[in-house]
């Protein structure tokens, strides 16, 4: 009798343990003996030499059109970090999707947790959301991937995320659009669909090293410059293309945004 009660009590404890162990089993990395730390990546949105100022800043593209930016959002995903020994650390899928929004300063800094300690020399990421995640069960797409709640970064008529959204105003944009221009670029290349605007960006940290330690969090500052988005391989003209969304021309803008990111500096411990 007494034994039964004891076993019962122990069972209840086991029950509790089991609940907690189940909750963490998907992301648990504690089983690996590797020491880990954190790394921050800061996306500094700029326009050439100037800091990007929404609404108030005025900038000029290569074809001489002057414009202001009212919105700049983009997805950064599938992050991989390169180590000085040539190996790569792949950020786990479930923690590798970020939406950078100029209007939300906190979103411009992303923190990668559980990064193995070591010296990192470069980063690779995707602009956009890969096809696998784009087509994943709705329950697996929460937070910035929630198609209904991610600040308009999803096309509900053509299932898929908008990878990058740049909106602004310019005298070169039609009066009928209130002088506004719109670049909503997406398209993950699902079966039979012609365009794929996912772009992989690789940025070496030049001669610098981001040293991740258990007690030191390096902060890697990257620049995201809206000017190459206009002035890349394709010279984007607002008067000629004041609204580009899901159409074949969008691939030119995607090629341009693959040129907008560059390395700025590393701050050792932030």
């Amino acid at each position: 009798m007494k034994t039964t009660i004891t076993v019962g009590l122990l069972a209840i404890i086991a029950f509790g343990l089991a609940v907690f162990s189940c909750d963490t089993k998907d992301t648990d990395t504690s089983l690996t003996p590797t020491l880990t730390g954190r790394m921050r990546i800061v996306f500094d949105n700029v326009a050439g030499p100037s800091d990007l100022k929404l609404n108030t800043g005025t900038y000029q593209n290569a074809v001489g059109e002057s414009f202001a930016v009212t919105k700049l959002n983009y997805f950064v995903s599938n992050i991989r970090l390169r180590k000085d020994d040539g190996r790569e650390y792949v950020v786990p899928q479930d923690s590798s999707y970020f939406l950078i929004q100029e209007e939300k300063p906190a979103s411009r800094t992303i923190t990668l947790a559980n990064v193995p300690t070591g010296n990192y020399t470069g980063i690779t990421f995707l602009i956009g959301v890969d096809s696998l995640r784009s087509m994943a069960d709705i329950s697996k797409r929460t937070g910035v991937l929630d198609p209904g709640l991610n600040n308009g970064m999803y096309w509900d008529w053509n299932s898929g995320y908008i990878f990058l959204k740049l909106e602004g105003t310019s005298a070169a944009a039609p009066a009928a659009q209130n002088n506004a221009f719109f670049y909503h670029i997406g398209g993950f290349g699902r079966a039979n669909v012609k365009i794929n605007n996912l772009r992989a960006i690789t940025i070496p940290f030049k001669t610098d090293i981001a040293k991740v330690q258990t007690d030191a969090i390096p902060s890697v500052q990257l620049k995201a410059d809206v000017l190459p988005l206009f002035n890349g391989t394709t010279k984007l003209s607002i008067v000629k293309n004041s609204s580009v969304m899901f159409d074949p021309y969008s691939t030119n803008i995607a090629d341009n945004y693959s040129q907008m990111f560059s390395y700025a500096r590393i701050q050792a411990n932030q």
Partner: protein
Amino acid sequence: MMPLDTILLKRTGLVASLLLFALAISCQSNKGNDPIPDPVPPNPGGGVDYQTTPVTFRKPANFPDIVYDLSQNLLTVEGVALGKTLFYDPQLSRDSTISCGFCHQQFAGFGHSDHPLSHGIGGKFGTRNVPGLQNLAWGREFFWDGGVTSLNELPISPIQNAVEMDLKFSDALIRVQKSPGYPAMFKAAFGSDTVTTARFLKAISQFLLTLVSADSQYDKYVRKESGGDLNPDELAGLNLFQQKCATCHATDLFTDKRYRNNGLPAGAINDQGRYTITLNEADRLKFKVPSLRNIERTFPYMHDGRFATLAQVLNHYTSGVTDSPSLDPVLKANGKLGIALTDTEKKQVSAFLLTLTDDTFINNRAFSAN
């Protein structure tokens, strides 16, 4: 002092119970019906504190395998009931006038009776004919152009569409969260009264998945059930249908789910159909082959509702097919446009099509507003 063997026995008991309970919990979490379990269990140590009643999905014997992954959204009485309540709730439109059921009327096979183009909020019109809803578990892609790739995402589109329900999806969730009655229904269906995107959408999917239409006179005929007698005209029509129509209107779903240009000249709307989604030139003017189930009730016909009667539809196929680069090859076989049918044959095909009306489905109280 306890003898050593008793202690050992107890230790064995501890290990055994630990394993047993770990197993029990892991089994529950695998089969868990909640699409997004709360990060902290609602009742730590007490396991799942809600009880759902499973609903068995009906797969008719004459149908192919389903496409929808039911393992990610197990049907329950509570989930289906919640989904139905959402489906008939006009609060999901900006001015609380338009529910999903406003345009998807049960008596019209869940199409919009007598409306060539969708007719939504503020009397505004869309650019396409409301498709009837049935057998959605067999759908791979949705809408006339296949733009939506999952049933679970579909409702976001009409809710946010400016000429349909015109409500931001985030506002729809807030309204539902604040609406009396809903939190308890979410709790009953998913174990949590928090309204999330996934729970909201999966509940609607659950209701839609129950809309199985498989009891027409034709179904009874193929399954050799009572009430399945076809008269000579209907039989002749079935025979003609199988020879001349079933390439596209394939299987007992009556669609091959592909995108085809059936020779309709582009209308004033100049809808490019599937091209809008794929941007492939070859897809211009192509639309998804619609099912023909309940076709008697889903008039008018075609993606833009340009034909009011079945006779007009059949006349299009015999004499109205217009050539264009993307015209489906089956409609210009041997260099001749369209499908050859005599007037008698058209009547027979029509007679057959009317055997696809499923009164059991159309009158099923389980699908009606409460």
